[in-house]
């Protein structure tokens, strides 16, 4: 268990001013990249890699890890306050977080988000530390057969997130799946649904999908209304009419420390959910081949499924924010494991991190456990310290951050759209993505306007490609009997259980389906 190394590296980190200083500047950078729609952690890593080039291995790796650890915490800010997520996992936070803001509970949502992401980050790091001795057998027991079934399990959540109309959810979800099949056919290498456009060979980027379905529609909607995201008199009246209005103080635009702490207390009250989501997502993050984006959505899906009040989700249920945020942050630790020990990135962000590790001269492999265990523990502690520092920083800045929610539309719309488009362009370097965002964003606006759920589209895009790729490999490796492997059978049972539970809920007299503004 290397307890001596574990604590000596913590001591070294805390007593080396240079490392502490770098972590202190890495955290606000991570929050900035995460909170600016379109930029995100991957672009942050890309932009910072040249700066670590001349650092020594430990310093460079700790700096990048600390920055990347808090990206998703930052990403929750625009998701909650203006309904504009920057990436796949943050879109799950937007579902309930933004709804809470519209109910006048932005401060509580932010507090829940800060608390849940910190708890997720810490529990994920703890999971990473504890699983070091049994890491290899865990990872090696998951093959493409299991990746495929895990992806199918995730796709079953489309039903849960379909809202009022299961049919609408399925149509949008299947449309997302179809979009996931854009690109080169994995079995023949021939272009598919690319309409002769070579830039579509690599498929539809998740970033483009998220910005199209959330950022652009929210900004169009805001432009049409022509006012800030502050709770409107109309909404207040509606809330009063339906008898669900919170006290007037809670509907205020102001984010107070009291609200933030209320949200953090919600995290304590949902401790078992936080624990379950952290472990689930960290474990999924460990398995290379499924990816962190999928993990965060599975945490959200699990939160909705396991709740006694699924009808509240998408309307501003604090547990939705807690589940999604715990998932987003816990996966970072999990996905670091296969990156370090097998050189196989556990998430798309980790793929870039892997490149940075190689540039720093860190050769991922099982030898990390023996020859470079100090680096491994330093990175685990960097995740912990960055998360703790981040939560204190964000709590302190909470009331000022909250002002974003009442920013004038005339300022917000160009800012958000500019960064969203810039992010789309910078990451792939494709101007064509700008057109795609505008076209698909218009579609997203139509979905929003006519109350069609948008979350199933993101799930379809993220999991469709994984499912297809894994199915092809599983069939090639094991033949048609691939689903008879022991873990596969367990996963099949979970899939059947998930569908059965959904159907049972539909028939249960006291259960109401989720509304469709997800």
């Amino acid at each position, binding site marked *: 268990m290397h307890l001596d190394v574990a604590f000596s590296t913590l001591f070294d980190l805390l007593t080396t001013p240079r490392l502490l200083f770098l972590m202190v500047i890495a955290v606000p950078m991570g929050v900035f990249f995460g909170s600016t729609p379109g930029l995100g952690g991957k672009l942050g890593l890309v932009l910072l890699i040249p700066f670590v080039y001349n650092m020594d291995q430990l310093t460079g790796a700790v700096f990048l890890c600390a920055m990347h650890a808090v990206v998703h915490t930052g990403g929750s800010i625009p998701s909650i306050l203006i309904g504009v997520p920057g990436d796949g996992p943050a879109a799950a936070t937007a579902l309930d977080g933004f709804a809470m803001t519209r109910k006048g509970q932005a401060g509580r949502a932010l507090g829940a988000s800060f608390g849940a992401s910190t708890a997720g980050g810490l529990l994920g790091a703890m999971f990473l530390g504890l699983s070091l001795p049994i890491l290899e057998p865990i990872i090696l027991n998951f093959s493409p057969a299991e990746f495929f079934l895990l992806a199918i399990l995730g796709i079953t959540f489309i039903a849960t997130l379909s809202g009022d109309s299961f049919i609408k959810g399925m149509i949008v979800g299947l449309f997302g799946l179809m979009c996931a099949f854009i690109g080169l056919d994995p079995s023949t*290498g021939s272009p598919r649904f690319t309409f002769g456009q070579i830039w579509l060979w690599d498929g539809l980027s998740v970033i483009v999908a998220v910005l199209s379905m959330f950022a652009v529609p929210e900004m169009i909607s805001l432009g049409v209304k022509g006012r800030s995201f502050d709770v409107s008199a109309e909404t207040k009246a509606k809330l009063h009419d339906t008898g669900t209005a919170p006290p007037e103080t809670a509907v205020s635009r102001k984010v107070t420390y009291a609200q933030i702490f209320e949200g953090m207390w919600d995290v304590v009250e949902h401790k078992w959910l936080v624990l379950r989501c952290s472990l689930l997502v960290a474990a999924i993050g460990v398995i290379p081949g499924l990816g962190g984006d999928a993990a965060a959505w599975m945490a959200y899906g699990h939160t909705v499924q396991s709740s006694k009040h699924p009808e509240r989700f998408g309307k501003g249920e604090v547990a939705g924010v807690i589940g999604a945020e715990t998932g987003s942050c816990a996966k970072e630790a999990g996905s670091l494991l296969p990156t370090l020990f097998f050189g196989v990135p556990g998430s798309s962000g980790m793929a870039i991190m892997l490149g940075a590790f190689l540039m720093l001269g860190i050769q991922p492999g099982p030898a990390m456990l023996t020859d470079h265990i100090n680096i491994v523990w330093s990175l685990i502690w960097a995740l912990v310290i960055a998360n703790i520092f981040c939560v204190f920083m964000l709590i302190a800045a909470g009331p000022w951050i909250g002002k974003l929610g009442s920013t004038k539309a005339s300022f917000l719309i160009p800012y958000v759209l500019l960064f969203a488009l810039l992010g789309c362009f910078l990451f792939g370097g494709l101007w064509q993505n700008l057109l795609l965002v505008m076209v698909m964003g218009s579609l997203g606006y139509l979905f929003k306007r006519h109350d069609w759920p948008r979350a199933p589209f993101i799930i379809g895009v993220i999991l469709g490609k994984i499912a297809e790729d894994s199915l092809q490999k599983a069939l090639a490796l094991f033949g048609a009997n691939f689903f008879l492997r022991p873990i596969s059978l367990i996963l099949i049972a979970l899939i059947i259980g998930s569908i059965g539970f959904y159907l049972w809920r539909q028939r249960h007299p006291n259960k109401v389906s989720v509304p469709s503004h997800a």
Partner: protein
Amino acid sequence: MLKHWLAAVAGATLLWSGAASAAADLNQFKGKTITYIVATGPGGGYDTYGRLIARYLQKYLPGSRVVVRNVPGAGHIVGANTIYAAKADGLTIGMFNTGLIYDQLIKRQGVLFDLSKFSWIGKASDDTRALMVSNKSGFKNIDDIIKSKAAIKFASSGVGSAAYNDTKILADALHLNVQIVPGFSGNEGEMSMLRNEVVAEVGTAESMEQFVKQGHGYFALALSGDATSLPGVPRASQYVKDDKGKRLLGLVETLSEIGRLTAGPPGIPPAVLAAEREALTAAMKDPQLLAEAKKLALSIDHAPGEVVEAKIKAALAQPPETVAALKAAAGG
């Protein structure tokens, strides 16, 4: 006497002017920005090589600024298309995979370039290809694999990729009974070997070296390189009997010899191209660059643009039956 002096001065002047025209003017890039395109996303091997080369090109082209731009897409095709279509002023150059030779030979959709027309600046390394076999597989050597009656599972990256084509070529040339399982990227193939799902994979020796050092696999066959590149490993050429197989393997060998290429669009003025070639050659000999490359575990084996150009042209001159074999491979 005066005549002799005049002749000597005239001769010296001629020699000096000749030397001056041979030595490229490296100062012509003063105040200019050179865009170095890397045809992959950030973080991978190509990106690492590209950024290293860009920094040292800047050093040897005084007053210039060399910026790296990642143009990923379609397995390096988008990046190569972008370089090919750039203005031929030497201010846009870049790096892409040598495997694009396969794509040009089979006239793959999306290829808008002609590799024989690029302005070749040089190469940074050899990409020795090898067959690596898992220690868990039960196959002790290449002879066991050749004799196998049952289909042997080989991991590979996507259909149409350079690694996939190399695998197909090896299987065809040695008449191996192979089932290629495509779709593995990065080190995923090695993980699949650890899970005992696949037996082997074909790739660059450099990328698989770590796995071998860790004791999980061994190099069963060297597809290219000389005896010094993988000492003690049998050469594929020893096992290839027919002409078709020899030609296919010859193509892989040529590709292996010209790894990590730097090229510019067709028609770069000779003086500009000469300066960039000279700067790259100087960069490749720079002790600091070599030390950094060693730290990053990147091999450096430079050859100038003229050599690269000759090899590219030779690789593109394939008989129809080789092209047909490659087309068959690309068709899955």
